[in-house]
């Protein structure tokens, strides 16, 4: 690849115990280009980049910068070589302003005017929108990301690594991010984007490097490839990327939410006056920017949230309607409302990480044992059943689920919830961190439940999937219902607008994407 190599990985291997995160990886990044690092979750993308950023140190192999072997032992070393990484989980001090965060770690006196001037210079050069004096806790997710990117540029990074930068952004914000990235590329910066979204890879990158299970599969010019080919590289075999979506059969109201307001544990209202109806035999998607009240809404229905106002009517088949507000989680579950909730840390709610599949099945049946003892037989049988049915790869049903791969953890959770034959199935981020095949298994499970007449509520992140999987999509914006659209006729743009603005109308003043919008705009429109 000649003298234009800016960074080269040579036979890099990194292991965590027995797990090989990266095995013998060699490839290079050209100066002034955007490279996408593509691979499924757990394929070792972040691990590899963490070695370039000085977080991890490779067990074997070396990293070359401009042909010279270098030792990057700490993030400080990385900055000496002008490498900066924007992590998926932002590392900012909430109580500090943007400028303070950006200058954090600098030696010497804090010269605010000089810092502000430099930030302004960087922003205008690449087109960032940033207020140096705004506190981080007042910022939206995309603003925080901007701070992170400006931070690494401020420190003089020529090579930027962005770990899943688009995961938390709306389509409009992604568009803006890409504009900025192109401006940086034009300025001679090299950029590595970690992602698993194919359409973004095609749109932004010059080259694509693909990892699979810790191994390097290959590097191609983006112009020479297409999403289908990339998927095959990523997964290792052909996959049909299609979701079956039968029309809902005989939909009847199952859950009627009326004017629901939910307060979180800090006493802040996270959902405001929410009203909607979920029908049997239908998948109702729920879309929104992360933290717009999706979690609170589902938890409220499951009885896990403080409800300040409103009602949740549950209308089971052939039985009289039931008000869920005021019922305990146990009573709600026994009535047939099941929450297969997969939170951000996946094991935090719904599963017990240190227990095996068997112990986790007990979460549903632990009360059923005779007297003071738990009945391990029921749970063991159920665990064996699910292990077979969903092909869960575990050495033993006693093996701690924390040590299973993400896909298997998800199968355990969803499998257990479905096994209870619910009449309402709620699921959030059910495919987060899953490989493509397992994701489609989960989609199909949802569709099967729908065909059985279950009312499925599905909180998703990937708008493409929501549009393919769901029948209707409820869009949340800042805790309000921004709109409910027909998934068969809507598009990403419409949903994106609804996510950022209540009602989806851009006010005449044109608020930049990602800024919070109030109720006033709805009234303006």
């Amino acid at each position: 690849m000649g003298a234009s190599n800016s960074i080269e990985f040579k036979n890099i291997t990194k292991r965590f115990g027995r797990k090989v995160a990266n095995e013998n990886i060699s490839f290079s990044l050209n100066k002034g280009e955007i490279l996408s690092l593509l691979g499924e979750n757990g394929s070792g993308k972040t691990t590899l980049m963490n070695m370039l950023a000085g977080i991890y140190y490779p067990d074997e192999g070396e990293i070359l910068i401009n042909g010279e072997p270098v030792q990057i032992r700490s993030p400080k070393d990385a900055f000496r070589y002008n490498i900066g990484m924007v992590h998926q989980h932002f590392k900012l001090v909430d109580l500090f302003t943007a400028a303070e965060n950006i200058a954090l770690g600098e030696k010497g006196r804090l010269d605010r005017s000089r810092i502000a001037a430099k930030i302004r210079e960087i922003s205008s050069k690449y087109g960032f929108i940033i207020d140096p004096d705004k506190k981080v806790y007042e910022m939206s997710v995309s603003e925080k990301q901007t701070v992170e990117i400006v931070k690494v540029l401020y420190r003089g990074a020529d090579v930027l690594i962005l770990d899943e930068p688009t995961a938390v952004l709306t389509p409009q914000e992604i568009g803006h991010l890409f504009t900025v990235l192109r401006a940086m590329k034009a300025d001679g910066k090299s950029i590595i984007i970690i992602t698993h979204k194919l359409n973004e890879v095609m749109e932004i990158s010059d080259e694509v490097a693909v990892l699979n299970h810790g191994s390097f599969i290959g590097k191609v010019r983006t112009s020479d490839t297409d999403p289908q080919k990339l998927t095959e590289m990523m997964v290792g075999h052909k996959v049909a990327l299609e979701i079956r979506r039968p029309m809902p059969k005989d939909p009847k109201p199952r859950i009627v939410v009326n004017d629901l307001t939910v307060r979180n544990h800090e006493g802040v209202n996270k959902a405001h006056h929410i009203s909607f109806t979920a029908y049997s035999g239908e998948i109702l998607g729920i879309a929104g920017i992360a933290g717009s009240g999706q979690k609170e809404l589902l938890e409220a229905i499951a009885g896990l949230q403080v409800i300040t106002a409103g009602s949740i009517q549950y209308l089971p088949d052939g039985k009289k309607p039931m008000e869920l507000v005021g019922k305990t989680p146990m009573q709600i579950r026994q009535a047939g409302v099941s929450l297969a909730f997969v939170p951000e840390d996946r094991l935090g709610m719904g599963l017990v990480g240190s227990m095996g599949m068997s112990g986790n099945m007990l979460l549903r049946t632990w009360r059923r044992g005779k007297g003071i003892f738990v009945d391990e037989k029921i749970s063991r049988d159920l665990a064996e059943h699910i292990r077979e049915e969903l092909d869960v790869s575990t050495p033993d049903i006693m093996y701690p689920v924390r040590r299973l791969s993400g896909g298997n953890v998800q199968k355990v959770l969803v499998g257990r919830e479905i096994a209870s034959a619910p009449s309402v199935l709620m699921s959030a981020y059910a495919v987060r961190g899953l490989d493509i095949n397992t994701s489609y298994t989960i989609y199909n499970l949802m569709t099967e439940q729908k065909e059985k007449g279950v009312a499925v509520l599905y909180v998703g992140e990937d708008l493409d999937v929501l549009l393919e999987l769901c029948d209707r999509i409820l869009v949340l914006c800042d805790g309000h219902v921004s709109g409910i659209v027909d998934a068969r006729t809507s598009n990403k743009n419409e949903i994106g607008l609804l996510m950022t603005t209540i009602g989806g109308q851009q006010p005449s003043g044109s608020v930049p994407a990602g800024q919070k919008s109030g109720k006033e705009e709805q009234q303006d429109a």
Partner: protein
Amino acid sequence: MHNEKQPLFHLARRDEMPKSKVWMIRAASFLAALLIGAALFGVLGKNPFEAYGTIITGSLAKPSAIRQTVKIAIPLLGTSLALAPCFGMRYWNIGAEGQITAGALAATYFALHFGKTWPHPVILIVMALAACLFGGLWAAIPAFFKARYNTNETLFTLMMNYIIIGVVKWLQGGPWEGKPGSQIIPMFPDNAMLPKVLGVHCGWIIILLLTVFMYFYLTKMKHGYEIAVIGDSVNTARYAGMNVGRIVIRTVFFSGAICGLVGYLVTCGANGTLYDSVAAGVGFTAITVAWLAQLNPFAMIAISMLLAVLSKGAGTLQTRMEVPASVSDILTGVILFSMLACEFFINYKIIFRGQHNDDGPRGFAPEDGKKPVKDAFASNGKEGGR
């Protein structure tokens, strides 16, 4: 090939190890501690072999010595058992010292007032029940506040220790004082003392039965399951319909009741009276025992015995070889330190410059090396993702 800029060593996380290797590391670290101890004796000009020999013979060679050692081990084991459910729930009860004292205080009330008049079995049973109840209630106060207002139980339970010890001090010099000015509570009548079995008060039978019970409680019973789930994730427990606050209070009450029982055994089994330092630091040492045993009740027996041997042996060492008892305390410290430190080497390995991390994939191992509790719901060991 390896230029000088490479770091001298770096750490790599291990995944799992075969159980045999884990125990070998533990044995090696114990041996290392003994070697450090030997060096210590050497510096003092004593023959290390003789010193270790004296510790063993002093604590285990004669029946009378064994009885003494067992007497030291009883409260230690009992308190470690009491702490197991709390720690399993990740409720950091460091108030065992106070709960033991509370139990001893309640037992003493009945021994002093009704010890001579009530029939022998009745007085002993009433004393035991009172000790459990008061120990449990004393523990439940911080638990209530934890459940209701999410207060910090570590500080709260610690402070509760000082209060109850203060109360005993006041009783010693005030209402319960024996001879005026003596600052001592009178000895219990024999009628209010525990009978002896094989030369040691019958508390050892109670504690051994409790060990077996605790094992089943933690691994087979609904309560144990609830404790394990809460210890792993409070959110999951709520999701499963558990009333977390109630379970916390109930479990801590149970834990405090066992501590109270230990206080009862110490007063009417061994001491025959009550004084402010009745718990004698057991409430704190038991924390180490519980962690070293990774909350496995059977492992607690071995560790309590080891500490009792060291403690009893220290006395003999002092009289026979003129080694100060504090040296034995240092030895105990070194042993505990290296046993805790070895967990680090079980979880991590150090790769030196030029070495390769050749811990290649070997597929799944069916058992989890770090967990001695077989078939337990949960390990309670601290392990996290990367």
